[in-house]
């Protein structure tokens, strides 16, 4: 199940070309000034914006994979989450989130029956992470996963990420917190002007 994620000459109108290889169970943390294209990079990997280049999950090329299947295998959680139904549970495949997953994120069981309108920003974001993980992805793309969270929730999310890394899932995350990258044992890279510019802190 565990597969590496290999990004080759990924390019959009605004960023790239970018080459990056993440081993199975490896965590890479991207930082860089705002407007450098960090979010666009993750969107391009998920094939959400038109792009050139190729991405492999194991030996499977993205171009040979229908986009919906690809996005279930390489799941992106954007910095701002979208909701289209009134009740939280309707956003989960099968209509019911796994209670164990919710409690791992510090959310009560009945969070599934909450209405989206009453969610706080932090609850929204953790539920967005939960519904992506519920897809059973082999790689996870997280855009500022803890920017909106309090310290306790941040700890819960980091603990869950470490568990997923232990299961062999590759995690590519955008974060401004150098300590977070350290806590996750991540390889740190810097993105500048749409290109990977070597290890963070080196410039």
């Amino acid at each position, binding site marked *: 199940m565990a597969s590496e994620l290999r990004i080759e000459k990924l390019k959009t109108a605004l960023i790239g070309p970018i080459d990056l290889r993440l081993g199975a169970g490896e965590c890479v943390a991207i930082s860089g000034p705002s407007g450098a294209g960090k979010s666009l990079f993750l969107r391009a990997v*998920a*094939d*959400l*914006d*038109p792009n050139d280049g190729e991405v492999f999950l194991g030996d499977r090329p993205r171009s040979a994979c*229908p*986009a*919906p*299947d690809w*996005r*279930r295998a390489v*799941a*992106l*959680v*954007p910095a*701002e*989450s*979208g*909701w*289209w139904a009134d009740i939280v549970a309707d*956003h989960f*495949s099968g209509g019911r989130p796994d209670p164990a997953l919710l409690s791992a994120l510090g959310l009560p069981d009945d969070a599934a029956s909450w209405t989206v309108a009453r969610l706080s920003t932090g609850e929204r974001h953790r539920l*967005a992470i939960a*519904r*992506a993980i519920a*897809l059973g992805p082999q790689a996870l793309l997280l855009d500022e996963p803890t920017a909106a969270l309090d310290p306790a929730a941040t700890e819960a999310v980091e603990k869950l990420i470490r568990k997923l890394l232990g299961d062999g899932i590759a995690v590519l995350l955008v974060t401004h917190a150098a300590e977070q990258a350290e806590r996750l044992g991540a390889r740190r890279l810097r993105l500048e002007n749409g290109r990977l510019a070597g290890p963070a802190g080196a410039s």
Partner: protein
Amino acid sequence: MTSAYIALSYWDVALAAIFLVLNGALSLLLRLQLERQLAISALRMVVQLFLVGLVLKTVFAIASPWLTLLIALVMVGFAGREIRARQERRLRGVWGYGLGAGAMMLAGMIVTTTALTTQIGPDPWWSPRYALPLFGMILGNAMTGISLALDTLTTTVHREKLAIEAQLLLGYRRFDAVAPFTRRALRAGFMPIINSMAATGIVFLPGMMTGQILSGVDPAEAVKYQILVMFLIGGATGLGVLGAVLASVWRLTDNRHRLRLDRLGGPAA
């Protein structure tokens, strides 16, 4: 029991404008600043109708299928422009004009041709005296429906970008991810014709039927004609709205199941 048709003199027509002139005077008096617009639009109506009367008279006299088709296409051209103008955000390039106008033309022509060849059956079937007014009524209603539907679709899809992309990211296919908003657009497009069918005969008498009755046709006959026309209008509007909305959803997404808002223009000034 067909009574005589009462012909109007130009003096009668001019006299009827008295109440409109009264409105203009009131607007001046109350400083509503509507008098200019009122005057201009009234004048436009008079000029346009005289011209169209002239054109129709000529076209009826010449009775050529090609000329009839040409007039129909000109009507489509104007209605297509109207659809485009009524959208706040429209697809870039020829799509912004082409999708709405194309769907309207296709639906209108299919329905009009079918009605002319099978139900109404003038001789020849394309006789401009029947084809053009019928096509015009159908086109006008399809135009209203399509412009409402497309305006709803593009505005909603633009506003609900996060919700649509959230679904795409969870592995939804493009038509599924946009489905709630497609439905909303279709409902907006169908509403005018549904309302007008429901209210016809109770709240108002349709213009065509009123016209026939005024010109001396037996009300029962006028009603039959009106029902036929309502069915045709409903059918064409439905087909046109469905075609225009589905084609726009197709254009607003791509085969890698992405939302392509880059194909949508900014808000109209």
